[in-house]
């Protein structure tokens, strides 16, 4: 890698001090990022110790009294804890599996499309919902399921279905949550897979055609194996997020009628720690920390397994 000319600038054999001095301009450029990460990422990690304290505004992070694992116990013994955990895992695993299969099939299908113009149209149109905000998506959902004017509700009614507002039916809301997410992101999420598929050597396909392989054979024996490393990496990353379903979309879909399926960890933290009139900061922080530790452990476990199986790994 290092050729004589680059050694002129930063000789590999020179002392660490010399090398640092030669690259000081780079360190200068790094300052904003390092300061930002320390303040807005590492400091909150330190701040998370309030999970083991009873945080008061006057006491601050250091001055508040230690209470050990009390906040964690409070969450685990909370009577809705199993429900919140179940709701979170259900939404998360449902999203991961459904969007994974749709994304895979859509990518393979787009990759097989021979009419380049039509392929472009499908891609452009299916990218459009990705640019729509969560607020607007949920706004559209509420209006579409409105029994008196909503097109989807009208469709359900014309097929002989219910005339209730499905946004208030707790069993329906997780499905609406997941499939509206697929509507929004399926097209966009194919970008990475299609990019990977385009890296296949075309001579591989040509050779297969000469040998009499049908397109279906080639999907199975060429396209799919090409995607495997990318699939493994994305699934590992999904695993590391399995407990962290963001609060923003769910918060908008929640109402008093559907709470039994829509109360998830992040919305609960928001509820007790921020939205409440008497916020319980330490309790909220403890729930988040509990969540992060589980996520992080899952990520490590899956990554280790993947490495053992000789598949792609994050590190």
């Amino acid at each position, binding site marked *: 890698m290092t*050729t004589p*000319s680059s050694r*002129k600038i930063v000789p590999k054999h020179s002392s660490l001090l010399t090398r640092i001095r030669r*690259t000081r*301009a*780079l360190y200068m*450029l*790094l300052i*904003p*990022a390092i300061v*930002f*990460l320390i303040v*807005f990422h*590492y*400091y*909150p*990690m*330190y*701040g*998370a110790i*309030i999970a083991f304290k009873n*945080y008061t505004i006057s006491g601050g992070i250091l001055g508040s009294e230690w209470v050990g694992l009390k906040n964690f116990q409070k969450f685990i013994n909370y009577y809705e804890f199993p429900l919140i955990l179940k709701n979170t895992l259900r939404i998360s695993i449902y999203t991961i599996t459904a969007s994974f299969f749709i994304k895979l099939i859509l990518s393979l*299908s787009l990759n097989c*499309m*021979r*009419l380049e113009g039509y*392929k472009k*149209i*499908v891609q452009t*149109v299916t990218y*459009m919902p990705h*640019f729509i*905000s*969560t*607020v607007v998506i949920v*706004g*559209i959902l*509420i*209006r*579409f399921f409105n029994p008196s*004017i909503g*097109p989807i509700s*009208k469709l359900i009614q014309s097929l002989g279905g219910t005339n209730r507002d499905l946004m208030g039916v707790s069993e329906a809301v997780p499905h609406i949550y997941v499939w509206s997410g697929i509507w929004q992101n*399926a097209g966009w999420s194919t*970008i990475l897979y299609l*990019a990977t598929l*385009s890296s296949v050597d*075309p001579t591989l*396909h040509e050779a297969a055609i000469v040998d009499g392989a*049908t397109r279906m054979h080639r999907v199975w024996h060429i396209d799919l194996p090409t995607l495997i490393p*990318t699939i493994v990496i994305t699934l590992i990353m999904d695993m590391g997020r399995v407990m962290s379903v963001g*609060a*923003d979309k769910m*918060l*908008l879909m929640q109402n008093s009628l559907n709470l039994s399926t829509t109360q998830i960890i992040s919305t609960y*933290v928001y509820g007790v720690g*921020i939205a409440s009139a008497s916020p319980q900061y330490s309790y*909220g922080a403890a729930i*988040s920390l509990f969540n*992060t530790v589980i996520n992080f452990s899952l990520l490590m476990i899956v990554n280790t397994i993947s490495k053992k199986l000789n598949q792609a790994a994050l590190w």
Partner: protein
Amino acid sequence: MRSKSHIKDTKGERIFYLLNGLFLTIFLIFTLYPLMCVISGAISDPIPVARGEVTFYPKGFSLRGFEINLQNPKVLRGFGNSLFYTVVGTVLNLFITVITGYVMSRKELPGRTAISFFMAFTMWFSGGLIPTFLLVRDLGLFNTRWALLIPGMLNVWNMIVCRTFINSTIPEEMFEAASIDGCGYMRFLFSMVLPLSSAIIAVLTLWYAIGHWNSYFNALIYVYEPELQPLQLYLRATLIENIGDLSDVEASTESLGIQELIKNSLILIACLPLWILYPFVQKFFVKGVMIGSVKG
């Protein structure tokens, strides 16, 4: 290329391509249908809209929804605020992401592996919502525009994509040649790296701009001053909580229809800026995303 293959399609092949086309068409309709409903609901005559007769195709024609929204000072203020957050926020994001990506692409940087880990760790482990919230409060950023600009200034994942792009598009020989001619790190960044990275800068601009324009959660928890709130919070009040200026309109069929027109056109107004931005970025996308993420 493959379609010009001299080997003729067998019957099975033809069925395969036919079914494949059919599947994509169904998906196309699945995506397009809701969008068309919103568009039709924004430009139709208010009476059929109120009766629930308008779905895919518009009925009649009226732009009253757009007119009312564009005369509403709250919509205009929210739009202006969102524009401010998006432009200023994205510029800050780009600045810090590109310079950091450039530094991390220099393999001779002493301690690069450790710094890399220091950065990547924040993607997997975080302090959580409450400690961040308390930090923003203690820094005095509450109810200021900074609360929506600073806390998300650097996205580490985007920085890694940027670093990978620089590593794989700018050959090492170029740096060597430049440095023999006396070009330092700063000068190399500005006169070589930036001009050659327009594809990744375009992609990052889009990613960050989407984030700023569409986010509402940070504004919800950090900014209660209506003067400072972005458009998304106004949308939330109007579309989801159904509060705002619309409730006092009397409930005739026409006024009901006009309310629907207002909401649908508001949705389109909120979507338009990014739909306009995307085509400009599209041509860079293939290069930017593919090089940045696939090899990353």
